[in-house]
């Protein structure tokens, strides 16, 4: 009896399930034309398949620490921000600065004032208006000392920006409104009258006043510090506002749809994007740090794009399919073997000495003995490119002319002609190559010291330190390593960022190393303030030649961006700034085919 009821119960359930699975029918009453007949028709509803947008699945590696335009600084943070937001300007495939949210911009005669005119009818992804007041807020927030953003100094050309940043917001006499009033950032109507708020559609003009000429500043306005995050969202979300898709409402090509911290971010196209095109696919970021696992996931079809690792390069090259899927293009960094110039060093007996690289002939010897092509091939598996110049290919100011090259015989001669007369006296100093300890860096450093031994007869000890310790050492002129592999990756595509920001003696980078060249300083100062763009470029070109001739470091190699990309991802247009993923700068050119 018990079994009977069980079967009966199962039949009852099954019937209900089957009933639920019946196609829905609708009874319609149809009047047949010309007759009084009423016909009952059963209409069977046919389910319409939902059209799913294709998704581009990109592996970014490490999850971002903070996704806040005025606080972020890392590549993977910017990778998220630049899909959600767009600055006043942006960059095209050639890294030329082109209109972004601004339709046009104009400098005054001496480049101490820059006026942006926004495109009409700009909207955020939620349909709310985007006007100049939003960009005014973004820049103010970047400069506000309470924000303490890691890239806050990048807008220090703005009048009173460095002064405000240095003010103590906790001081009794601190008056924020006073600082805002005298800051060189003003949103207005076209006729100069004040805006009435964020809904003011006529508020389309943003005027920046600088404390010194800054004819490159329109390029800086393309980077993330000027992205217009909404003030009300930041305030509503509190300090952790950036961790929610609810508050990350932007004007970029995508809308942040889903955030699963440390797992994935999902984006959908923004139909209100005012840029050159609207992407035709969804974008999904995944965060797999282990390159071996990411490689397997790519081969298994679970990722559409992932950075390739040097360790997998041999496997990729040996496989015709993977080779065809491997995309390599110029990167944004130039790496050097840097010479410590300002610090005091100690020999094995503990006796202090000045840097031997203060002697230009020693610098020349080490520079000419650096086999950059051998490095690119042997150490980096051709995932870098040798260079004897500073600004990398693809960037404004790139110039192949250089007095430097790999010449071991000339290197030996230079060392012999130096104050040391040869390697012996140098060896007595106990030279060291300091590097951030990792298996890869150890391999690189061992290669380098062996080559210097082979070509110059110089003994260099390896000095591995923890990576963060390495950074700390290089930030202090007193502890800057005697020899260290270090470089520069561009913030924005302008020669000013490569030359003035990094090598001029009044900048922290040059001061840390102890480098100074008055001719270079004068040329870059003049170039920075020249409004004629052709003349400006020529001055930077001259400055670069002076720099190379002075040999502040052994040049070097340019990084390459290298990704594995599935064959169904088409239309990728890359720039050297696309170190996060291939095509990130202009994602609307990409299509993801069915597969």
């Amino acid at each position, binding site marked *: 009896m018990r079994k009977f009821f069980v079967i009966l119960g199962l039949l009852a359930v099954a019937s209900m399930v089957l009933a639920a699975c019946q196609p829905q029918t609708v009874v319609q009453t149809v009047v047949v034309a010309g007759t009084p007949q009423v016909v009952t028709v059963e209409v069977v509803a046919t389910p319409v398949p939902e059209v799913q947008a294709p998704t581009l699945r990109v592996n970014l590696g490490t999850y971002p620490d903070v996704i806040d335009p005025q606080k972020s600084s890392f590549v993977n943070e910017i990778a998220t921000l630049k899909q959600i937001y767009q600055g006043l300007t942006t960059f095209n495939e050639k890294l030329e600065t082109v209109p972004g949210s601004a339709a046009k911009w104009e400098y005054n005669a001496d480049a101490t004032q820059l006026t942006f005119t926004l495109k009409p009818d700009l909207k955020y992804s939620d349909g709310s208006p985007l006007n100049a007041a939003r960009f005014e807020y973004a820049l103010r927030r970047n400069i506000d000392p309470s924000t303490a953003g890691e890239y806050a100094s990048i807008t220090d050309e703005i009048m009173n920006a460095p002064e405000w940043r240095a003010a103590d917001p906790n001081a009794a006499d601190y008056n924020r409104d006073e600082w805002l009033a005298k800051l060189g950032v003003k949103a207005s109507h076209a006729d100069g009258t004040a805006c009435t708020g964020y809904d003011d559609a006529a508020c389309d003009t943003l005027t920046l006043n600088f404390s010194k000429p800054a004819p490159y500043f329109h390029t800086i306005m393309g980077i993330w510090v000027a992205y217009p995050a909404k003030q009300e969202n930041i305030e509503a979300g509190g300090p*952790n506002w950036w961790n929610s898709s609810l508050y990350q409402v932007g004007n970029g090509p995508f809308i942040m749809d889903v955030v699963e911290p440390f797992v994935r971010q999902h984006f959908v196209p923004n139909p209100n994007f005012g840029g050159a095109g609207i992407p035709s696919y969804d974008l999904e970021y995944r965060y797999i740090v282990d390159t071996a696992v990411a490689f*397997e*996931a790519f081969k298994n079809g679970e990722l559409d794009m992932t950075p390739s690792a040097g360790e997998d390069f041999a496997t990729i090259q040996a496989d015709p399919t993977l080779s065809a899927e491997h995309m390599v293009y110029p990167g944004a960094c130039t790496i050097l073997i840097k010479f410590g110039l300002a610090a005091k060093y100690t020999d094995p007996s503990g006796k202090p000495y000045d840097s031997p690289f203060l002697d230009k002939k020693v610098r020349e010897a080490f520079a000419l003995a650096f086999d950059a092509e051998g490095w690119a091939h042997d150490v980096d598996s051709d995932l870098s490119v040798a260079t004897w110049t500073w600004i990398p290919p693809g960037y404004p100011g790139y110039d192949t002319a250089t007095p430097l090259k790999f010449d071991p015989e000339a290197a030996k001669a230079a060392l012999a002609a130096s104050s040391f007369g040869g390697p012996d006296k140098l060896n007595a100093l106990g030279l060291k190559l300091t590097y951030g300890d990792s298996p890869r860096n150890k391999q690189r450093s061992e290669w380098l010291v062996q080559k210097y031994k082979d070509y110059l007869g110089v003994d260099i000890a390896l000095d591995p330190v923890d990576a963060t310790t390495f950074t700390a050492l290089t930030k202090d002129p007193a502890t800057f390593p005697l020899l260290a592999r270090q470089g520069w990756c561009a913030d924005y595509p302008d020669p000013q960022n490569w030359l003035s920001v990094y090598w001029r003696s009044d900048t922290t980078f040059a001061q840390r190393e102890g480098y100074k060249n008055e001719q270079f300083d004068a040329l870059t100062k003049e170039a920075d303030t020249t409004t004629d763009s052709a003349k400006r470029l020529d001055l930077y070109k001259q400055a670069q030649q002076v720099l190379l001739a002075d040999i502040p470091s052994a040049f070097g190699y340019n990084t390459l961006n290298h990704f594995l990309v599935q064959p169904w991802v088409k239309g990728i247009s890359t720039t050297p700034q696309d170190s996060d993923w291939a095509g990130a700068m202009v994602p609307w050119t990409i299509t993801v085919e069915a597969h």
Partner: protein
Amino acid sequence: MTTYLIRRLLWLIPVLLTVSLVTFIIMRNAPGGPWDTDPDRRQVDATTLKMLETYYGLDKPMWRQFMAYVIGDVNPKGAFVCGLVCGNMGPSYRQRGRTVQDILFSAPADQPFWDSRFGYSMRLGLSALIFAVVVGIPIGILSALKQNTFWDYAGMFVTTIGVSMPNFVMGIFLIIIFAVWLHWVNIIASTWTTPNAWILPALILGFGTTATTARQTRSAMLEVMRQDYIRTARAKGLAERVIIPRHMLKNALIPVVTILGPALAILVTGSFIIETMFGFPGMGRAYVMSISQRDYSMIMGTTLIYALLVALANLSVDIIYSFIDPRIRLDK
């Protein structure tokens, strides 16, 4: 038992204080700071650095920073901010705007506590431990009962691999076998809400503990099997199916329990490699990253949590002893 529990729990306070002090000293003596990032990119300028150091209290003397962390201190705005004694583990230096307790214990909106980073790590650790117990103990029992037979050799072969092979090597092998060749699971979990996604991570994480458990169980069983009381039980006519669970296993479990308690803590703390491989949103990776990033509050907070876990695990082991072996009295 109650007195014993209270006494052990009270001992946690000086233990954790000592751990926090030692961690603080080591951490702050390590060169570099939270804003010493990629040397090939722009670094934080001096003005901003000063602002950040003031905000985080790094401009104060070391003793005051430690006291501020444990008890609390007045912030630059003049308000008192209570420290660890109030459950405040401090602000993260890298994940600006978030506190350590928020990062570790807060789940995304509308999600339960077990979807926090701590929750994920605990679930992964528990899954691995359950796997170790469910698989490791039976293997150990079988190997002991069938000593020097095929079953014993097979079991020890597998456990030797588990003990000697690092889990990141094991992980790649298992990924290739189960995901790439067999397509039974995905390498990358599309979501962590399905049990399917947890199989490989739990398996890889727990494999080493499974092997250790199996070997320990086997050794303990072999020792117990040779005891006089087992011979007596057999002489009295008791069936093997009664002798094994009631007389052998109960006594053999004591050394096994000894390792399983701390094993849970190790499984939770040792999940860094698994989290890195699978993009698993747990605590382990946050812990290791915080060290290289010099995220001081995160280092202190996660170290204290792990110390607490180990202490509680050891306490649990002691309590379980008293249930397994009635001769053990905890009160005296």
